[in-house]
C-alpha cells in the first residue's frame, strides 16, 4: 500500500503537475506555429518573464499589506497575465513582424526567436540576478496531507495548495479555450487561419487581429505556466531553457497547430518523464522473498537515472520528429 501511495505521489501527482505546465506552454507554442508558422523558441523565456512579473506584483501586494486567503501568486495572476500578454505583443511588433514583412522563412524566424531568447534571458538576469527566489517569502505554502490509513497506508498522499490551484486553473483554462475556439467569431477565425491562411485572408478575416489575439493568448498562458511552476518549485532564471524543449516535444507530439493535441502532448511528456525516472524497485521490495536474488537486490530500477530526466523529453521529441512528424492529432508537418 505504501508503495502505491509513493507511486501516486511521485508519478500521478507530479506527472499531473508537470503535465499541466507543459500543456499550458505547449498550447502557446502550437497556436503560434499554427497561425504564424514558426517555432517560437523564446517561449520558455516568456514563461520566465511572466513568472518574474508575477513575482514583482506579489512583492508589491505584500508591501501594500494585502493578505488574502488564496496564495498571492495566484491572486496576482490576472494582472501578471495581462502584462505578459502586452509584452508578447511588443515582442512580435518589435522583432518578428518586421522580419515577416521582409518575407522571412520559418527558419529565419526561429533563429530570430533564439535571439529574442537571449535578449530576454540577459534582461531578466540583469534585473533580477541569477539567484533562486521563492513566491512564499511573505506567506506559507499550504500542504495538504490526505491520510491513507483507512486503506492501510502509513504515509499520506501529499498535495500542495499551489498544485491544487494549478489543476483547477488548467481545467478552467482548457474549458475557456475550447469555448473560445468553438463558439466565438475570433476563435473560429483563429482556427480558420491556422487551417488555411491564404483563404482566411481572401475571406476577409482580419488576419492582423488574429495574430494579435494569438500573441495575447500565448503570452497569458505562458505567464500562467511559468508562475505555477515557480509556485510549485521555486523561481529560477534558467526555468526557461529546461522547459522549452519538453514544451516543444509536447507540441510536436500533439501535432503542431492542434490545440487539444498540445494539451494531450503536455500530459504525455509530463507523465513520460515522471514514469521514466520513477524507481520501480519500490514495487519489487514487497515481493523480495519470492524473486531471484539479482532482481531482489536491485536498487535504482528506474528506466532513466534522475540526472537524465531532461533527456526523456528530448528523446521523445527526436523520435516523434523522425517517426511521425504530424504528431498524434495530425497537425502541420514537413
Amino acid at each position, binding site marked *: 500500500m505504501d508503495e502505491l501511495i509513493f507511486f501516486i505521489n511521485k508519478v500521478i501527482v507530479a506527472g499531473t503537475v508537470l503535465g499541466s505546465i507543459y500543456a499550458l506552454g505547449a498550447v502557446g507554442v502550437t497556436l503560434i506555429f499554427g497561425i504564424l508558422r514558426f517555432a517560437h523558441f523564446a517561449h520558455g523565456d516568456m514563461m520566465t518573464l511572466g513568472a518574474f512579473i508575477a513575482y514583482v506584483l506579489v512583492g508589491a501586494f505584500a508591501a501594500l499589506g494585502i493578505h488574502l486567503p488564496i496564495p498571492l501568486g495566484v491572486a496576482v495572476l490576472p494582472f501578471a497575465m495581462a502584462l505578459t500578454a502586452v509584452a508578447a505583443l511588443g515582442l512580435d511588433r518589435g522583432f518578428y513582424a518586421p522580419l515577416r514583412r521582409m518575407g522571412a522563412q520559418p527558419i529565419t524566424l526561429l533563429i530570430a526567436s533564439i*535571439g*529574442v531568447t537571449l535578449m530576454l534571458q540577459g534582461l531578466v538576469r540583469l534585473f533580477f540576478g541569477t539567484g533562486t527566489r521563492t513566491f512564499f517569502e511573505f506567506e506559507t505554502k499550504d500542504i495538504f496531507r490526505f491520510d491513507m490509513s483507512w486503506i492501510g497506508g502509513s504515509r499520506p498522499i501529499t498535495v500542495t495548495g499551489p498544485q491544487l490551484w494549478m489543476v483547477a486553473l488548467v481545467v478552467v483554462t482548457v474549458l475557456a479555450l475550447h469555448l473560445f475556439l468553438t463558439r466565438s467569431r475570433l476563435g473560429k477565425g483563429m482556427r480558420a487561419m491556422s487551417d488555411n491562411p491564404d483563404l482566411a485572408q481572401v475571406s476577409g478575416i482580419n488576419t492582423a487581429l488574429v495574430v494579435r489575439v494569438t500573441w495575447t493568448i500565448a503570452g497569458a498562458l505562458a505567464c500562467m505556466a511559468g508562475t505555477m511552476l515557480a509556485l510549485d518549485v521555486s523561481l529560477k532564471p534558467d526555468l526557461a531553457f529546461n522547459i522549452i524543449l519538453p514544451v516543444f516535444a509536447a507540441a*510536436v507530439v500533439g501535432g503542431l497547430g492542434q490545440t487539444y493535441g498540445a494539451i494531450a502532448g503536455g500530459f504525455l511528456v509530463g507523465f513520460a518523464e515522471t514514469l521514466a525516472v520513477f524507481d520501480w524497485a519500490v514495487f519489487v521490495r514487497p515481493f523480495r522473498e519470492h524473486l531471484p536474488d539479482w532482481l531482489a537486490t536491485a536498487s535504482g530500477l528506474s528506466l532513466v537515472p534522475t540526472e537524465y530526466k531532461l533527456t526523456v523529453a*528530448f528523446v521523445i521529441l527526436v523520435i516523434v520528429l523522425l517517426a511521425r512528424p504530424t504528431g498524434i492529432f495530425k497537425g502541420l508537418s514537413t
Partner: protein
Amino acid sequence: MSRRVALAYLGLAVLVVVIAMTRGVSTAMLLAAISSIYALVALGLNIQFGYGGLFNLAIMGLMMIGGMAVSNISMPVNAAFWASDGPLLLGRAIGAALAGTCLVIVAHQSWRVGVPRPLVTWLKVLAWFVGYIFYRTQIDPAAAYIEKTSGWVGGLGLPVWAGYAAGGVLAGLAAYVIGKISLGLRSDYLAIATIGMSEIIRAFVKNMDWLTRGTLTVTPVPWPVPLPGAYQEQGVDIGTSFVYGQGAFLAVTLAILIVSVILVERAYGGPWGRMMRAVRDNHIAAASMGKDVKARQVEIFVFGSVLMGIGGALLSSFNQLFDPGGYQPINHTFLIWVMVIVGGMGNSYGAVLGGFLVYMLWAMSEPVSAVIFAQVSNLTSWMGLGAIPDIDARAAQMRVFFLGFVIWLSLRFAPKGLLPEVIRRHV
C-alpha cells in the same frame, strides 16, 4: 582575394592591435588563439550551412565530443583503472551494448524473413527496450565500480595530436549518425532536432563520470607546444613566457586553420563544390538529375563536424581543461551561428573573419560592460539612488542580451553578412 576581404581583415588586425595596446600583448595572444579555434568551428558551420544549407544547432555537442576525445586520448593512463576489475566490467558492458545493437538490427530486418509489418514495429520496440535494459544491467554496476575504485577510466597517454585527430573522427562519426537520422527533416525541424541531440549528448557526457569525470573535470589537458611554465624554468619572466607559449599555440591553430581554409576553398571551387551548391539551391532539381541528395547532405554534415570536433579538442587542450559542465548552448552553438551570420555565409573568409571578430567582441564585451556599468553606478550613486550591486555578474548578462540583439540585427539588416557569398559567374 578581393578588396573587400582585404579591408575586412585589415580592420580585424587593427582591432587586435588595439586590444594589445590596451590590455597587453599576452591578452591579445590569448584572444587570438581562442578565436582562431572558434574560427575553425565557424568554418565547419559554414560548410554545413553556407554551402549545404543545413541548420546545425548541435555544435555544442560536437565540440564536447572533441573535448572528450582529446581528454580520453592524451591524458595519462590511469594505472588504478587498468589494475582493477574495471576493464573487465566495462568490457562486459560493451559486449552487452553490442548484443543489444545486434538484437535491434535483427528486429529491424525481421521483415525479410516474412514477419508481418505491424509485428515488425512491435519487435523493434521490444528489441530496443530489451537491449537497453540489458545494457543498463551491465553498465550501471560497472560505472559505479569504476567511479568508486579508480575515479575514471583515464586516458591512453597518446600524444595530443592524436587527440585532435580523434576529436575530428569521433565528431564525424557522431555527425554521421545524427545526419543519417535527421537530415530528411525540414530546416526548422532539423534545427530543433539537432538542439535536442546536442542536449542529449551533453546529458550523457556530463553524467558519465566514469568516462569523462563529469563535473569533476579533467585537467591538465596537454599542449602541443611547450607550456609557459617551461619557458619560466629557463629564466624567462612570467609575462614574456605567456607570450611565447601562447604565441606558439597560436601558430599551431593558425596553421590548422589556414590548411583547412585552403582545402575548403579548393573543394568549393571545383566540381564537388558546384554539385554541393546545386543540391543546396534546389534539392528537387538536383535529385531529378540523379544526385543522391541525402547522401551528399550527410557528407557535408560530416565534413563540417570534423572541423568542429578538432576545434573542440583544440579548445580543451588550450584551456588545459575538459569541463562537461561548462558547455552552454549560448557559448558553443549560438555564438558560432552569430559568427557565420555576421561574417558572411557561404564564404570561408567570411566565416573565419566572423569567428575572430565576434569572439574578440564577445570576450571584450564583459570588461567593457563592467566599465559602462561602473559609470552608470557612479551616476546613480550621485543621483542618490545608490550604487548598482553585483556589477560583474550583471555585466556578464548584458553581453548575453547583446548577443541576442546582434543576432536579430543581422537577420534584419544584413542577412548575408559582412562578406557575402561570392557567386562565381562562368561567362
